[in-house]
């Protein structure tokens, strides 16, 4: 069979075969005949993609790539299915596969042309990737003139020439606000990137260096992988290579089903994650309702019926991104010890209704900040955590991870050069609490397992904001028997000689992520921006500069110490606007959700946290019911027992039977007595999701024609 024959036909035949048989490859005869050789070859392929990543990290000049490792490489079949991937941004296990298939389905073979040494650039998230920041470079590779597969590399680039600097603005209402978007454009031939592509980037974005440097890093990585795989194909022969690589995917598919069957309890799970829109006039909650059905046969069915509509707002994600997020969640939580490839994707049945905020059908809509497409991954991970719990595997159980959030800036730096970017320190937010320990502070993000905040000095080079504070956010993580990890609080100062717009992205004024099994959600995010400060006077007088947020979120230490025109944004969606020199800007990254009843927390852990400054004395007393010595922080065991007993009595006194609660609330529901963000959600979802509408009406015992 010619590997070059019509790729579109090949892809369609493969899809049909899979639908009919449920198998990617009919047999595993290579594995069964030579299991050691099978593993050795896979290790060599894995080594090829991993080596490429390590080298590319050193080539790139982008802090997000170098400092946080926001990069991944993958090897694909001729039909675009992933065979093996490096470490890194696991979201993109499947998103590059989507882009390759898109080129095949759009007849690139005959219209654009596919040749050895061609490079295709894509950052159109409706095709593949997550948002315009996610930029992939893909090349087909050949042996003796026959197409043997594709290699892809992806990095997260922090400036795209969007309306707001830093690519991820919270004000975008159309795709045209998101900057330079190139849909699977051929940008290189004969193993070289075209000069006019560089010129396009140079003239379209504020800081072209990260974009251009990442392209060179990816090109290098792709060539390394291609040459390594070619050498292996020379040893195995092309037919044997094609056979064994298909077996790697089938083997993963079978292992995925087996792992589900062994380690997840069969049943129906439901979790809901929350996001929202804060654009003036569009204020609405957005829900990500995840129904997971774990079958006894090792099947997984994931249903997101109940998502809100896609709209002209940035808190939504494309289907390729959403698939990427969900499989990132599954790989991080369940399939972490299997091969990372599309076998995992094939094992899962997914329903994401068209036209919703996780599957928009209008490519002119912005999909910058993902909203429920990020929350949906967390909801799925929570379902999986419960399935592990029921099987007894408590070491895998945890609350929700952080809603990563951070700042954006752009303008002219001290050398008169334009700049723009995101401070990607939020890749080390607060980790979720687990069933056996607290979440780590400032060490986690769901999308990148490396969880590195990067050096402040490196960020100051890319975005000339000066760090005055970088600290663990006190009381950030969700309270619980085990508490969620706390994220970072950073306070930046705009130095002299800088013309800067600064903004932030995060969430609406809601709890940023959920707790589980009695644990509280993580705290809400927020921004403080101070203009017209008296910092110059403070410095001239030799007085101390602010060094912390302190214990009181209503009056942070920096607000009390520095006179300014202070502005507060609850929830951390703050479209970028001018901040003159001397201004201060305070942001937080996300925190993790809490696990279990806080009154069951070991008092010694509370004392430790108070002493370390991660828990306030107020929370120790009011949330955890722990009595501490004011000076030594020693636990008063008797006093703690009494306080906790008292707090339990208070619960019994204030709690009302669910039937009574429902009766009272039903009257409000019937009267449509909802605040505006809830009302907007219900109006939308009741109209588009018969499933959610049915559940809503049944739960509140409403008439069949009830709408909002």
């Amino acid at each position, binding site marked *: 069979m010619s590997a070059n024959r019509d790729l579109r036909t090949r892809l369609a035949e493969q899809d049909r075969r899979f639908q009919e048989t449920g198998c990617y490859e009919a047999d595993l005869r290579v594995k069964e005949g030579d299991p050691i050789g099978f593993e050795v070859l896979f290790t060599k392929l894995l080594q090829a993609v991993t080596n490429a990543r390590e080298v590319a990290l050193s080539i790139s000049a982008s802090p997000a790539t170098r400092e946080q490792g926001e990069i991944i490489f993958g090897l694909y079949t001729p039909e675009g299915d992933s065979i093996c991937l490096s470490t890194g941004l696991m979201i993109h296990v499947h998103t590059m596969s989507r882009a390759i298939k898109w080129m095949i389905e759009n007849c690139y073979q005959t219209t654009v042309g596919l040749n050895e040494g061609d490079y295709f650039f894509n950052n159109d998230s409706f095709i593949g990737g997550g948002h315009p920041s996610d930029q992939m470079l893909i090349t087909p590779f050949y042996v003796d003139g026959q197409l043997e597969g594709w290699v892809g590399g992806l990095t997260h680039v922090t400036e795209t020439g969007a309306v707001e600097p830093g690519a991820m603005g919270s004000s975008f209402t159309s795709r045209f606000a998101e900057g330079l978007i190139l849909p699977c454009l051929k940008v290189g031939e004969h193993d070289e990137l075209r000069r006019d592509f560089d010129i396009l980037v140079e003239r379209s974005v504020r800081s072209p260096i990260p974009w251009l440097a990442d392209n060179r890093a990816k090109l290098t990585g792709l060539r390394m992988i291609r040459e390594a795989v070619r050498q292996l194909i020379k040893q195995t022969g092309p037919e044997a290579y094609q056979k064994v690589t298909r077996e790697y995917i089938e083997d993963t598919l079978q292992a995925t089903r087996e792992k589900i069957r062994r380690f997840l309890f069969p049943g129906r799970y439901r979790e*809901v994650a929350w996001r929202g829109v804060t654009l003036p006039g569009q204020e609405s909650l957005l829900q990500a309702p995840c129904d997971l059905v774990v079958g006894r046969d090792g099947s997984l069915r994931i249903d997101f019926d109940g998502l809100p509509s896609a709209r002209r707002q940035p808190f939504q994600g494309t289907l390729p991104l959403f698939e990427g997020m969900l499989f990132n969640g599954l790989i991080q939580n369940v399939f972490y010890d299997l091969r990372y490839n599309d076998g995992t994707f094939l094992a899962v049945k997914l329903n994401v209704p068209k036209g919703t905020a996780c599957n928009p059908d209008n490519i002119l809509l912005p999909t910058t900040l993902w909203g429920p497409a990020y929350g949906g991954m967390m909801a799925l991970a929570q379902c999986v955590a419960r399935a592990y719990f029921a099987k007894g595997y408590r*070491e895998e159980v945890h609350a929700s991870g952080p809603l990563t959030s951070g700042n954006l800036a752009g303008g002219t730096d001290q050398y008169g050069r334009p700049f723009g970017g995101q401070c990607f320190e939020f890749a080390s937010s607060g980790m979720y609490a687990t069933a056996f320990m607290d979440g780590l502070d400032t060490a986690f993000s769901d999308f990148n397992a490396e969880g590195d905040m990067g050096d402040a000095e490196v960020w100051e080079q890319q975005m000339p904001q000066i760090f005055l504070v970088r600290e663990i956010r006190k009381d950030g993580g969700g309270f619980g028997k085990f508490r969620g990890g706390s994220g970072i609080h950073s306070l930046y100062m705009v130095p002299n000689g800088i013309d800067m717009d600064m903004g932030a992205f995060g969430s609406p004024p809601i709890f940023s992520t959920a707790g589980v099994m009695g644990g*509280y959600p993580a705290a809400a995010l927020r921004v403080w921006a101070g203009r017209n400060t008296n910092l110059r006077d403070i410095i001239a007088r030799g007085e101390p500069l602010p060094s912390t947020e302190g214990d009181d979120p209503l009056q942070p230490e920096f607000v009390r110490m520095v006179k300014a025109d202070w502005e507060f944004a609850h929830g951390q969606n703050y479209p970028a606007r001018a901040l003159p020199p001397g201004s201060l800007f305070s942001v937080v990254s996300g925190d993790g959700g809490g696990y279990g009843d806080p009154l069951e927390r070991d008092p010694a852990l509370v004392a430790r946290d108070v002493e370390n400054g991660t828990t306030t004395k107020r929370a120790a007393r009011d949330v955890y019911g722990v009595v501490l010595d004011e000076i030594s922080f020693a636990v008063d065991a008797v006093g703690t027992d009494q306080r906790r007993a008292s707090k339990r009595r208070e619960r019994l006194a204030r709690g009302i039977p669910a039937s009574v609660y429902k009766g009272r609330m039903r009257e409000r529901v019937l009267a449509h007595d909802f605040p505006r963000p809830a009302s907007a959600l219900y109006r939308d979802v009741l109209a588009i999701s018969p499933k959610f509408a049915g559940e809503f009406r049944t739960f509140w015992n409403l008439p069949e024609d009830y709408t909002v």
Partner: protein
Amino acid sequence: MAEYSDATLRDLITGHLPLDEVQRLQRDKDLDRMERVLKIEQARVSWSDRILVCLQEHLYVVATAGGQRVVKCSCGQEFGDYRTNWKEAALVYERAPQDGEIFLGTRGADPEWQVLREFYCPGCAVQLDVEPVPVGYPFTFNFLPDLDD
């Protein structure tokens, strides 16, 4: 496949297993874990109904002497048939999100956007769940185990 002692699993359940031991369990799984954990959990409760599955912290589906399958708290409080959301039999408290007891000021959500719905066991007052939800949102039925043979 690995095997772990009852003491190890008991420490895991109570949250006292050292991290390096937890990581060993994460790397190398034992296949009879569920049966082992059910035995340990059965020994921790004071009642004799057989535990069929652990739903979450403090809550189990048990087989009663009368042959019913109900949700039961570690304290002995029963929440009814396991096919009905146990939250329907809990005590509920809708907490203002910035009430100052749990979340101080804007550390909590804007009450226009979300409230905290707390669920307590009527028997022992343990907090079983906290839902951050908009006003009027139905209770979430988190887990319906597939128990039918």
